[in-house]
């Protein structure tokens, strides 16, 4: 489904190029649950951003399905971005001025989903995450774990095929973290492709594949079951 060929990403400093990613070749099949691990600065987030079409400043080829991202028009790329990807952040990144309900609704608005359909999708999600009672609260009124649940609900509201999560449990207690990972596991079982970056080894156990990154290179790539 996703194929990266010889991806380099670097920044020019005065005397030399500093490589953030170097020679990444990676193929991810639909339905995989991939965990990216590695020390800080290894390039996990950079790789995730490239995978999520948030960063276009790199060299090498990125094929999504049969198509080369680089040869796509801006419009195609942005519609691909909207329809296929969901994002989850370490710091949740909910919009503070919007309620839980409205936060989940936002991506649907940008996808021009009709009002009645929006209502049913959001109701379903709220129900799934046991947040019906909290739908009119603002993010500041929720605990970290609950905020991240909203973040997940928001990410999957548009029914993306690929879910990208950058340190989704980094700010959470272990109990909350476990809850989030179980949600990921359920989503995986339902067929969603998940790519997460994490520091915590135990999170990798929920997935099917573990990739170690060191200094912008893939050091190991193993299946786990």
């Amino acid at each position, binding site marked *: 489904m996703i194929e990266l060929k010889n991806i380099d990403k670097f920044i020019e400093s005065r005397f030399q190029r500093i490589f953030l990613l170097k020679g990444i070749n990676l193929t991810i099949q639909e339905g995989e649950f991939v965990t990216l691990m590695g020390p800080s600065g290894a390039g996990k987030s950079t790789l995730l*951003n490239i995978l999520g079409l*948030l960063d276009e400043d790199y060299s090498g080829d990125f094929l999504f399905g049969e198509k080369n991202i680089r040869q796509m028009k801006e419009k195609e790329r942005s519609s691909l971005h909207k329809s296929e990807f969901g994002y989850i952040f370490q710091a949740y*990144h909910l*919009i*503070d001025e919007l309620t839980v309900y*409205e936060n989940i*609704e*936002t991506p649907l*608005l*940008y996808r021009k989903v009709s009002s009645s359909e929006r209502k049913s999708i959001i109701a379903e999600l709220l129900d799934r995450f046991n947040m019906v009672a909290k739908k009119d609260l603002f993010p500041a009124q929720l605990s970290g774990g609950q905020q991240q649940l909203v973040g997940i609900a928001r990410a999957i509201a548009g029914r993306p095929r690929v879910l990208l999560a950058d340190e989704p449990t980094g700010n959470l207690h272990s109990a909350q973290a476990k809850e989030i990972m179980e949600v990921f596991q359920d989503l995986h079982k339902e067929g969603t492709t998940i790519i997460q970056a994490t520091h915590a080894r135990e999170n990798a156990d929920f997935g099917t594949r573990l990739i170690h990154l060191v200094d912008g290179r893939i050091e190991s790539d193993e299946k786990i079951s």
Partner: protein
Amino acid sequence: MWKNYFKISFRNLQKRKLYTGINLLGLTIALVSFFAISLYIYHEWSYDRMYKDADRILKLNQEFISGGEKQLVGTSPSMLPVVLREEFSEVEKATLVFDLGIFSTVMVDAGAGNQEESKFAFVDEFFFEVFDFSLLSGQKSNLLQNPNEMVLTQSTAERLFGNVQSAQGKSLKVDGQEYEIKGVMEDFPSNSHLEFDFLASFKTHRHGKEPQWSPSNYYNYVKLKPGVKVSDFEKNLAQMVDRYLGSDQEEYGFQTDFYTQPVTAIHTGDPNLSSIKPGVNLKYLYIFAIVALLLMIIGVINYVNLATAEATERNKEVGLRKVMGATQSQLFGQFVSESMILTFGGLLISLLVLYILVPVLSDWVQVPLQLDLLVSPFGLIFLGGVLLAVGFFSGAYPSLILAKMEPIRALGNKIKLGGGAWVRKSLVVFQFFVSMGLLISTFVVKSQLDFMREVTLGYEKEQLISLSYPYQARAKMPTIKEEMKRTGAAVSIAQAADMPIHIKAGYKIFPGGDNQRELMITGYAVDPDLVNTLDLQLLAGENFTEFDIQRNQLEDGSEEFSVLLNESAVREMGWTAEEAVGKRINLGYMSNSVIKGVVGDFYFNSLHQKVGPLVIFHDPMEANVLLIKLPAGDPANHLAALEKIWKDQVPDRPFNPQFVDQAYANLYASEERASMVFTLFAGIAVFIACIGLFGLVSYVALRRTREISIRKVLGATPVDVLSVLAVDFMKLLGISSLLAITFGLWFSKNWLQDFANQTTVGWMPYVFSIALVFALALLTIFYRTWEVYRLNPSNTLKSE
């Protein structure tokens, strides 16, 4: 979608109360000023546009060239409309208005004794065919056809007779002559250049019975037939002048031409042309319009500046929305909708404020501002336009910055808005440039006004009063003068044609006697006491004596008229003051005039005009006022004594003294108004700019809280910290100052150009204006910095 935009916009505005408050305050003040000025300008612009065929109605003015000198006059002869009606096929109608008010007031007796009235005019029977004012009673077809008929305006009828119906058919006496009221018309609208209470039939007047080519004392109007070109009509006019006046012109070596002025242009036309109502200087209207626009721009700039500064705080939201699939145009829409909401709020509040302020403002500018204009279809379109324009311009730039942000960088922490800073700085420079520029302009306007108030006029206007009297009481004046002087309540009393502040009577000196030049000259009929009463300076020769009166009353052909000339007149004729004494000149009907003396120039009109030639002739029979010099001390006591004598001698005439110095000050009412408008709006501009600066500094200080705290820990004093923040802004203000000085120089040159007699504007206005703005800006910055400085560093540095 839009619902979502509005919802989040509302919450954002609610959350950031300081930001919203500053923006709302700035926008509201700017909008109130903008609307108030717009209403005023609209009123002035709408003058004389309400007549049915306003585009075809023209006023006839006169251009008089003699001795190479050109003079424009707003009046023309009584013969002109007659000829126009009879001989010009392109003329539909022509009418004449004779405004008696420019010469004197009249006494009107409607059964309850004499009242002094000034808005009195003679008009011919065609008046209502040119100007379609509606009648409340009477019939247009038989108005003003015969002598001694009159039309009243509605409010005059109500004032004198209680209501319109009871006025119809009644009679009233004007200066003892009886008139029958044939009709009552609507009041002249406030935006008509015509303004009278009484319209009497011109046939009553001797020139109405027998039209003449001289004098030129009448306002004449013509309504052309549809489709006639004004230039063609003027060509025919020129031929007509040759036909009728050609021989005179050749004989006396002058040239006169009639030219037209659209009725809609009278109010904003040449201020030197005499007119029924004082006009408005078109330049002032333009300046006011620019000021209104500038204030609006300053308000918008506040928004732009704050919003861009604030964009750094909102980058996270923007980044997220982008990650979730928002396009640039969607984001743009969202942020513009926020500025629209704020503008709409400001608009509503400003309308409310205007509703409360309009009565005060109307009174203040002496113009009835009509707020209901804003709810007319035109007004609503105007409001909608303002809303869209202000909302869009406020929101567009910050929205663009936000919408263009790259999502990754926006999500990753604080970002710096490099380009935004540049634009923001220019906008701050502009704001303060406008503030300083307006302040400097205010001082320029004020100093010219002060100059005009305090200039030495060449005569003494302090403790000088003017009392007008009717010609019937003329015979009693010598007695009254004696009586008044005897009580000690008057030092000196003179009879004169008018107050010395506006002497308008135009005369002509023809070649003859010792002078071969022809020139226009202003005439002033007085008695021998004038020179003493006004304390005029006699440069050569001597004042009139009783003997002079006897000389000019001889009717055996040997009569001789003694006159005084002013310095300018003598200079025009090429003489020195000494040479002039004893020379003979030809003043038309006073063809045998002898120059008895020469007085120093004094200002007998507003300082807009240079002092022109003036002839003072000895003719108490032409006088209409008593000029009374009061002794020093409280005028009230003296006036009481004078009133007693007045009541004894002229019981039917109200005692209505006017102080000459006050009347003089009234000459500059429009400058005074301009000065007030400038003061007010310069103050507003400075205020808006300062609250904008306050907001901007707040953001900068907030962003640099950590830096300030570190500096404090390292031992910085408040002044050190202040200088860190202030230096940047001071640089910007420095640029503003340079621009403002350039503007000020340009403005003072332009403004003063309208005054033949100018003040000199020194450096003080510049220094003071710039210093004032700097001080206010520093104070604003200091206040904000101090708040941050006071914070405990352990709190601000803790979380990183």
